[in-house]
């Protein structure tokens, strides 16, 4: 864990899930990872707890009994920018996209391993703490110098088009976090282009070919099937 992650206070996590088993598991696992865990079993409880406890991160299950998870998210977003990680199931990509576009920061698919969840939590918490990224992003041989607009792989400099660079930069700024297709299109090309995913595909494809050592098995730019893309996080 990055030293900067540790605050004076132990980060408070609000877990919102109606399933007793998941509550037990998360409480146990997250406490061991030195988080302070609070449980809410329904949407209403969650909203009340958020006001009372002021958590540093919310883990929100989309399949709540009393309210739509996205609705809970919206209500939260009315007054707080607290990072939210969604818990969802397979085959519900549309729900994930909708949640992400409504303000969630990341998602995890059930069944999940605790490592995956912790990684995403870290990314989300770091984003909350820091506001500006480090000028140089380095991971596994890929080096992106945001200040000087230079990209190199294994020491060799790579030439990117303007669009490709903007794309990479966006990914770097949200390194470790998932970005939906819509979000990327809106940020890079503008709101008028969100219905043109092929633009994105082509550029990702080209980008990969330029920076990935093995384009067929990408290790930097990871595909989140049906949702978006994620840049591998620097340790």
């Amino acid at each position, binding site marked *: 864990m990055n030293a900067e992650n540790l605050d004076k206070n132990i980060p408070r996590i609000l877990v919102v899930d109606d399933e007793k088993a998941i509550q037990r598991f998360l409480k146990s696992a997250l406490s061991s990872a030195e988080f302070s865990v609070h449980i809410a079993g329904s949407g209403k409880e969650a909203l009340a707890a958020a006001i009372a406890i002021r958590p540093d991160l919310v883990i929100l299950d989309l399949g709540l009994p009393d309210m739509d998870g996205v609705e809970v998210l919206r209500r939260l977003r009315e007054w707080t920018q607290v990072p939210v990680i969604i818990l969802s199931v397979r*085959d519900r990509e549309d729900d994930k996209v909708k949640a992400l576009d409504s303000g969630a920061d990341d998602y995890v698919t059930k069944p999940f391993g605790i490592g995956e969840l912790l990684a995403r939590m870290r990314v989300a918490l770091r984003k909350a703490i820091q506001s500006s990224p480090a000028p140089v992003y380095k991971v596994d041989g890929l080096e992106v110098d945001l200040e000087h607009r230079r990209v190199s792989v294994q020491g060799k400099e790579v030439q990117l088009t303007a669009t490709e660079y903007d794309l990479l930069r966006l990914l770097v700024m949200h390194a470790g976090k998932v970005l939906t297709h819509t979000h990327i299109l809106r940020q890079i090309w503008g709101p008028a282009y969100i219905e043109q995913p092929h*633009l994105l595909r082509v550029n990702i494809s080209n980008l990969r070919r330029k920076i990935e050592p093995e384009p067929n098995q990408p290790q930097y730019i990871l595909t989140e099937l049906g949702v978006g893309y994620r840049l591998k996080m620097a340790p």
Partner: protein
Amino acid sequence: MNQDSRLDPDVLLARVQAEEAQKVKGKLKIFLGYAAGVGKTFSLLEAAHSRKAEGVDVVVGVVETHGRAETEALLQGLEIISLKEIEYRGVQLSEMDLDAVLTRKPQLALVDEHAHTNAPGSRHAKRWQDVEELINAGIDVYTTLNIQHLESFRDIIAQVTGVIQRETVPDRVLDEATDIEVVDLPPEELLQRLREGKVYIPEQAARAMDNFFESGNLIALREITLRRAANRVDEQMREYLQTYATPEIWPVTERLLVCLSGGPNSERLIRTARRLAEDLKTDWHALYVETAETDTLTQDNRERIWRELRLAESLGAKEVITLKSDSAAEAAIDYARKHKITKIIVGRSIRPRWREWWRGSFVDQVQERSKGIDVYVVSEGKVSEKGEKAQPQISKESWPSYLNSLLLVLGATAVSFIVSAFLAPTNMIMFYLLAVVVAALRLGFRPALFTAVLGVLAFDFFFVPPFYSFAVADTQYLITFAGLLIVGAVISTLVARTKSHAEAIKTREAQTSSLYALSRDLAGAAKLDDILRTVISHVGETIDAQIAILLPHGQSLSVQASSSGFSLGEKEKSVALWTFHNGEMAGKGTETLSSAQLLYIPLQTGGRTVGVMGVKWVDSDEGLAPEHRRVLEAFSSQAALAIERAYLAEKAEQTQLLQATERLERSLLDSISHDLRTPLSSITGALSSLLEEGDVFAPESKRELIELAWEEAGRMNRFISNLLDITRLEAGAVKIKKEPYDVQDLLGSCLAALEPRLKERKIKIDMPPSLPLVSMDSVLMAQVLNNLLDNALKYSPPDGLIEVTARTRDKWLEIGVADQGPGIPEEHLAQVFNKFFTLNRAEEARGTGLGLTISKGFVEAHGGKIWAENQPGGGSKIVLTIPLTISGMEKASPTVGEKK
């Protein structure tokens, strides 16, 4: 019939069936009287009140009081169903509202005057048919009837009273009635009532009635009535005895045959035969023989024959047969011998005597041949209806053929002239004879005779001295003339007969072969539509009519097939529906709903009606000729059989399908159960070990157990995903969201998802860098690739290479996943895509067999194809193709997508 005292099982069965039918049907009680005014309606109403007092639900369907106060008084207190008003030719007529009574569904309905004829436009022609429908619907009925209304008594009573009864009821109605109550009144009292004006007589019949209400007549009528009722009781007793097997000596079996000729006396013949059969307590058959003459009958005569045949049927003839033959007598005797007839009933000949002297009348011929068979000749009786004699139809082409005859004679004369120089006059006769033969062959019987006569005259005129005059010098020539005439006549007759014989055979053969053709085609037709079309084309062609076939559709009938350009209105359909429910012919030419445009025939097999065939003659004035009737009956039973066969085949198919589905469900449950329990047992095993014996294990062992549990959990997860996918596919809930996607991207994410298992395996990816974006649902296709890769990992050895190829081929994207495992046996290459299909492998390598099925489902949902191949060097390869499609965006080019 059995001679011993054992029960005849057929009789028993018939009795049981009748009793069962009785339970469902209503009971009919007939109040029988020997004349009008004996008090039948009065008794009926009295009985009705008694029943009502017992609590039975009684309504009045129709009761004629004719203004008699006593009768009207009895109507008080009974619920009356309003009559239906029918307008006919500007006159308002009231009839019983049959549908209202059916809807009301009382326990007992009162319907007076059983023999009444309904107004035109009513559903049935006769009231007794209405009553039959009520009975079939389970409603009891009380009705009244006079003895003279019975069919078989019509002529006896006509003899007795001199009055012919027009409205009649078939005898079987009386026989099938549950109960008969004779309303009796001594004739003197009846006459007294008549004088007091208490008897209703319709005005038209007033004069005839004077004759009727004569003491002697009344006594005779009364006797007839009582005797008939006694017969009925006797019969009931007989039935009882038969069923309950009191030993009895059965009479020697007689069997009667009545020969119909179509003459005006045939009706009388039929009724006589019936009475005789009843007295002798035997069966009787009715026979009509079509000869060459039948073709010359008028339309009305044909219809009369048709009616007679139906009458015979309705009166209870065991068999009603129509035969085609040259000689009526021979055919009759043949039939008699075949069916062991003991008595033949014929009518006295109606044809003029002179025609009979040559070969004898029909009666004479029958008598000649009838060794061992009694022949009963029935006289015409005192009263005979003015019937139409069979008028031979004059051939429409008469005038031209006579002209031709003239030409022939002229021709013969001309030739004779030429030859006269060389030959004696007697030889000219040969030419005239030749002319006669030609005329007989070509022109017909009468023109041939005409030719003969003309020939004689010409011969006389031209070739017999004195020439050019009709005088005869040498009287020997008279013999020549006579000879010529006779020979001419004989030849004409013979030729004409041979011709008609040949034609009769041809027609018969045509019908037989058309029936055979229908049978053959029906045997070959498997589907219902084919069957119906075959029937329609065959029947339509054979009898030159338009056909429609209606089959049950929910509660009503719908036209399943018809000759082209033919549709039925609602009214017609309701007639068809009636036929279907009642299992009897209706429509044009019958007595039920005869105003319909078509004749409706029920298609029945084994007592069950499977449909209705509607027939409309192209020449709609033509009635139903007897031979057409035969054809229709034969065809309709064939059609019914074929239709039932189609239904049964469909049912059998459905049953098979059901069985197959059940089998599949069972195997599915077995499989799922196994594939869920297996990883679960590993997980429980590992975790329980750690829980209970945790302290004993070394850290590596602990780790190993935990890893095992983790892997098995992953396996379970995959299996459950597959189950969900297959459920979605089966439910048709797979929605494809197609978007242009990068194949590289797809593959990359699949490999990333499988990462832990790929660690020690060799994977080779062969993909050109310039693959275009492909329109696909990325989530589904990822599933497909996952399944294929999963299979490759499972079924190939740990050091085997797994190769993934992707390329474009015309308008398709082709992806292949190859392994170096044992391969798939040839015969199973297509079956591997079936649900739950697995090759028999070692336990560890076995899966549930859903992966390829799901892949196939998803690939095909894209409009693509997937198949399995064996590799030449060993191992198997799964190849899939999906269309590249999507307009425009084919190639990924570097300039696409640059910000403007």
